[in-house]
């Protein structure tokens, strides 16, 4: 089946777009696309083309007669504002866009129908508005009004229609272009709906080419969570270069970790290929890892690449750092004692045995007394790390965020005991959970806004393990009390309620730092 043969009638695709699950969909994957898709709920290609045209910056921000074009279109579509076609002769032209002049083609058709413009003259109208040419505009305006009067239209109505064309056409979009875009958007949405694992896998692979890889990955992983696709960190079980789908999940590739290059992975794969069985941590840390770039290994440990081997990341980092103090010769002899039979021994046991054999002149393998002191120091470091080497979710969340672009195995919330007071998740709330809700979340974006009364309020976005929640509003009375608590990466409990069915804003009435 060819993608060009799709009939644009798949209800599941339109449902997905209407729910705002648009990450990765052509032209509408951003915040504007998501929120306006949720509000405008496109159900066919024409409506989707209108969404694409109406989320352009001019349409969203510039007001014509007190309302933006996008808001006017949305209100008229929702039936909260009466549709006004300005003149009955142009009703057919403006019917599909509820009386709003969204496309350049519509303006040209109006000029043709109301004022009897030829297509050449209508194109001059488009050019005059686009180029803001005052002289040409004056000529076109007088031609338009004269032509309208000749067709029996009242002069004041002709002036009114021309003014609206002039205002709205500054931001209007080419319809053929918009429909072309909408087709590509539908195809990408269709692929997302029907091949969701592959869709996210390839988008994640593509994230390296984005200007801000971390943000892209973070958004993709959050969107994947909402769509029920689990993305997990790299694993020693699947030491591939790039994102892969295994066991129904998408695994990070080793080279998706910062500072880990293909050459490092190739070297690792070459070294382990000499073994016909999976290696233990002890074998890896003594035989394989010291031969690979130090920072790469540290970063792989930090993101949990070796976590399946039964040791905490902190203790693996500590042991690797100790082993790196040994010389190549010392390591070679230390490795001689590491094999399948004595794999139960710890690294400390092996180094102790190695040190007990003494320096060369006593039949051991350590080159000098100075090196012997160094080996004793390593033993001392292993015996007394000075700190708790068990896993710490908050720390790993930070490390993963830094090295993968997004924390995938734990979140800072996992370290907050008070998080258990939450009764809802971000996804439940964004799916429309009614009534008072309490969410334990990490603040991801804060946008302050000064009200007419010169008070400060905030719009924030948060996330928890279930996904992301945007459109959270903190009004000045609450924000003034909790301003110090709300900052990027803060962990908070927020209570509030979803109000205003149109925008689905979550209004916060209390905040607790956790």
């Amino acid at each position: 089946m060819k993608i060009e043969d799709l009939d644009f009638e798949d209800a599941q695709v339109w449902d997905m777009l209407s729910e705002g699950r648009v990450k990765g969909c052509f032209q509408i994957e951003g915040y504007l696309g998501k929120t306006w898709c949720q509000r405008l709920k496109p159900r066919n290609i024409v409506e989707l083309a209108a969404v694409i045209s109406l989320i352009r910056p001019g349409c969203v921000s510039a007001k014509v007669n007190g309302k933006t074009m996008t808001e006017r279109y949305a209100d008229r579509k929702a039936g909260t504002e009466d549709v006004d076609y300005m003149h009955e002769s142009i009703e057919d032209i403006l019917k599909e866009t509820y009386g709003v002049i969204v496309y350049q083609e519509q303006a040209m058709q109006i000029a043709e129908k109301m004022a009897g413009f030829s297509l050449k003259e209508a194109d001059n109208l488009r050019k005059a508005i686009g180029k803001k040419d005052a002289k040409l505009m004056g000529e076109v305006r007088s031609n338009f009004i004269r032509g309208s009067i000749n067709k029996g239209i009242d002069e004041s109505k002709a002036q009114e229609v021309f003014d609206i064309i002039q205002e709205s056409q500054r931001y209007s979009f080419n319809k053929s272009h918009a429909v072309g875009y909408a087709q590509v958007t539908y195809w990408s949405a269709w692929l997302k709906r029907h091949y969701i694992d592959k869709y996210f896998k390839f988008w994640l692979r593509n994230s390296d080419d984005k200007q801000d890889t971390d943000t892209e990955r973070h958004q993709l992983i959050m969107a994947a969570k909402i769509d029920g696709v689990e993305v997990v960190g790299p694993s020693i079980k699947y030491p591939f270069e790039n994102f892969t789908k295994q066991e129904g999940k998408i695994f990070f590739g080793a080279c998706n970790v910062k500072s880990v290059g293909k050459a490092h992975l190739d070297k690792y794969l070459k070294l382990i290929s000499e073994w016909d069985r999976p290696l233990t941590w002890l074998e890896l840390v003594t035989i394989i890892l010291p031969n690979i770039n130090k920072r790469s290994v540290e970063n792989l440990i930090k993101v949990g690449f070796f976590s399946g081997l039964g040791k905490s990341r902190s203790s693996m980092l500590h042991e690797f750092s100790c082993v790196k103090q040994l010389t190549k010769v010392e390591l070679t002899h230390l490795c001689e004692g590491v094999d399948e039979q004595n794999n139960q021994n710890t690294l400390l046991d092996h180094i102790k045995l190695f040190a007990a054999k003494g320096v060369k002149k006593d039949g051991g393998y350590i080159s000098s007394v100075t090196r012997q002191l160094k080996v004793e120091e390593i033993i001392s470091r292993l015996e007394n790390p000075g700190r708790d080497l068990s896993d710490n979710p908050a720390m790993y969340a930070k490390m993963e965020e830094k090295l993968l672009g997004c924390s995938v195995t734990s979140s800072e919330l996992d370290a907050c005991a008070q998080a258990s007071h939450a009764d809802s998740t971000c996804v439940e709330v964004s799916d429309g959970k009614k009534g008072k809700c309490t969410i334990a979340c990490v603040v991801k974006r804060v946008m302050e806004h000064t009200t007419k009364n010169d008070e400060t309020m905030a719009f924030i976005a948060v996330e928890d393990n279930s996904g992301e929640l945007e459109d959270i509003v903190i009004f000045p009375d609450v924000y003034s009390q909790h301003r110090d608590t709300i900052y990027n990466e803060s962990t908070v409990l927020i209570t509030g309620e979803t109000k205003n069915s149109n925008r689905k804003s979550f209004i916060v009435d209390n905040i607790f730092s956790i």
Partner: protein
Amino acid sequence: MNYRDYIVYDFETTSPNPLTTQPVQIAAVVVHGRKLEIKKGSQFESLMKPYLTQEECDKHGVDMLEDGAVAVHGKTAEMLAEAPSTEAVWKNFTEYVKQYNFKSSNFTAPIAVGYNITNFDNPIVDRLCTKYPYNFGPIDKKGRQDVFNNIHSLDMLDFMFTMFENNKEVHSLSADNLIRGHMGYSKGRAHDAMSDVMMTAELFCKMMRMLRTLASRKNFRNAFGEQNED
């Protein structure tokens, strides 16, 4: 916005001269940079084996373990003889601090906090960094220590000075007199590094929260301007 953590730390030593003393114990704890609370499981603590014979101390130009010091912290030569070497502990400590520096730049390195660290503990850190350059190089190009943030360092003794110097109820700004005596802090044993660190960390969190609250209530914009009436 400060996303750096604070590390409250303290040494117990062989003598009172920071330029020739030897550390015998180090302890530290991490305070969350924004929440101003102690991070769970973030304690570091270890004894450190100093040079214990007069010959070794003379060779390295450092002070022997003085009786007065033992009387203060209780770490005897017998206890310290079994302790890990200073170098091993220092390496472990630098690794521990590095764990809390998520961007691996000195600008984002944790900020050192302590009681009387400016004149006592910080010079010891400088000496240790010079003596045991390790891993990411604890000395930067300008010759400064590169373990902690080398722009900020907060000494609680200075905080206390600004607040209590003219207070007739406070006779001395020493931690023993002011925090354990005047303020009534009773947890742990005085002059055990970990106990002192926890005390300093709790004091630090309290003071910082107070100052942050004051700072957020007061509008500093145009504070020295002509229109300002405060």
